[in-house]
């Protein structure tokens, strides 16, 4: 992959997921893209907000760079995903970060609430492992390869790089 080789810094995904097994499944499905992306994992809503608002252990901006994508589970310990989403989307500093909700719930109220708080996308974790793999690789190609993120507006976009 040409653009991956050129890309100077790996793109950062902040994964907010309380289930260690699901975290591992997502991590393994992204293993092939290790050189282009970096996965930063936090396991509850409070830690996610600490990271994003650079509080407590994340006060050093160098240690908590802005993610290019937040993958957010909804049902989280301490502070739930919806509240994390609300705080991101009401913060002048953070609201431009794409937030993709990745939840097991396909309940209508969850979906509606997530969009009401300006989620960029709502994805339901598939039970079927082949579909799960496909979903993760689609997230990668859409959000990390094609999507232009506010922090990484590479000059002339990725088409140029690809055709080069």
């Amino acid at each position, binding site marked *: 992959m040409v653009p991956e080789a050129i890309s100077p810094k790996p793109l950062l995904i902040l994964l907010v997921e*309380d*289930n*260690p*097994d*699901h975290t*591992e*499944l997502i991590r*393994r499905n992204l293993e092939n893209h290790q050189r282009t992306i970096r996965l930063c994992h936090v*396991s*509850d809503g409070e830690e996610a907000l600490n990271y994003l608002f650079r509080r407590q252990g994340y006060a050093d901006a160098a240690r908590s760079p802005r993610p290019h994508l937040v993958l957010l589970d909804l*049902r*989280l*310990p*301490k502070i739930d995903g919806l509240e994390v989403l609300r705080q991101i989307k009401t913060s002048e500093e953070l609201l431009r970060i794409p937030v993709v909700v990745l*939840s*097991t*719930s*396909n*309940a209508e109220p969850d979906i509606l609430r997530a969009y009401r708080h300006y989620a960029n996308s709502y994805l339901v*974790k*598939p*039970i*079927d*492992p*082949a579909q*799960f*793999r496909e979903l993760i690789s689609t997230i990668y190609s859409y959000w990390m390869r094609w999507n232009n993120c506010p922090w990484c507006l590479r000059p002339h976009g990725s088409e140029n790089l690809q055709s080069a």
Partner: protein
Amino acid sequence: MDGDTQATERIETPGAHQDRWQTLQPPHLARQCFQKLSDEEFTRSLTQFPLESPNPILRLSREGAVLFANPASQKSFPEWEISPGCIVPDPLRTWVDVAFLALETCPYEIEWKGRWYQWFFVPFSEAGYVNAYGFDVTEQKNAQRTHQESLAELERKNTELELFVYVVSHDLKTPLITIRGFLDHLEHDAAEGRLDRIADDIARIRKAARKMQLLLDDILQLSRIGRVANSPEMVPMGELVQEAIELATGPIERSKAQVSVANDLPLLWGDRQRLLEVFQNLIDNAAKFTGEQPDPQIEIGVCDGSPEGGGCICYVRDNGIGINPRYHGRVFELFEKLEPKSDGAGVGLALVKRIIEWHGGRVWVESEGRGTGSTFYFFLPPKKEEKEDNPHLPERSATNRPCSARCPSAPGFAQMETAPFSAKREETNHGS
């Protein structure tokens, strides 16, 4: 005679001929029904008509002074000591003002000595008085309350059911994704000979399957509260605690916690099986969250001194990870987990809360925050006495104080001599 019979029939079935009855009822026709009475007697019977009403009827001056009161009003509100010229107490006094201001018939409700009355205030502003018609609506009120209570209960059940559906869609799906996902990886890892990952894959699958089983058990247990009730009995708390410790042996041994139980534990009143589940879950919880504590301790006992009105406050204390005060409310909610890494479905403490509340008690937690340990308390009320005062009978309200102020020079009172209170007392005796 013919006309007589027809009129009588109409009186007996006014509902069926409502429209006709009203149109056919000029005074002379109504008079026909009472032919046995002399004119004088008939007129008097009409003036006495409100006196015979089983409902309280008052005529009040602008100032709220009683111009007329029927025996039923004195019987219903003896504490008001209604007599000519006395000022009615609030809130009736206020309603008189409102009726004159609004100049329309307004119904009001008042609770008096456990009975509900609806009052209609009909103002006659030129004459300077208001007629107040009271109706005893206690039965309707009670029916309404029962109805509302069962509606609330239904709504609560419905919410709970929705939560259960949510659990199926989320909490059972979560381990299922893990199992199927890692089975898939297991297959690949085995094919590629990646032996290092196989053990990890299997462990994750096993753990997820176990979690599904735990969740199913918890859901079943939860659904039994209130549905499967064993009759309450006096249970020695010491016995319950010992049994609960045995049931929680696994988690206690894993945590290497020291469990100490206070001496002289009291008798508790409740459903034995459910109370055992309370202790088991609390001990389980204490053993699970010992954190980094090198010397984990669990202490079980009761608070000194019994609370007002009897009952008993029990506690299960640990010196484990503690709980941030911010989350003290959330720990008892269904499917809430503060520690993502803990196994269990977040049902245990919700179960404790429901069981205790089902017993009429209360549960709470005290903890200074992380690393300070936590103490779970619950209050269990004493054994209920068989014969209890009706809890629906409220205390006499302070606003409905008996009328004491007298107004001897109530305007228009002189004309009301035809409805004397002494005469009405006789009526009361006949009526009752």
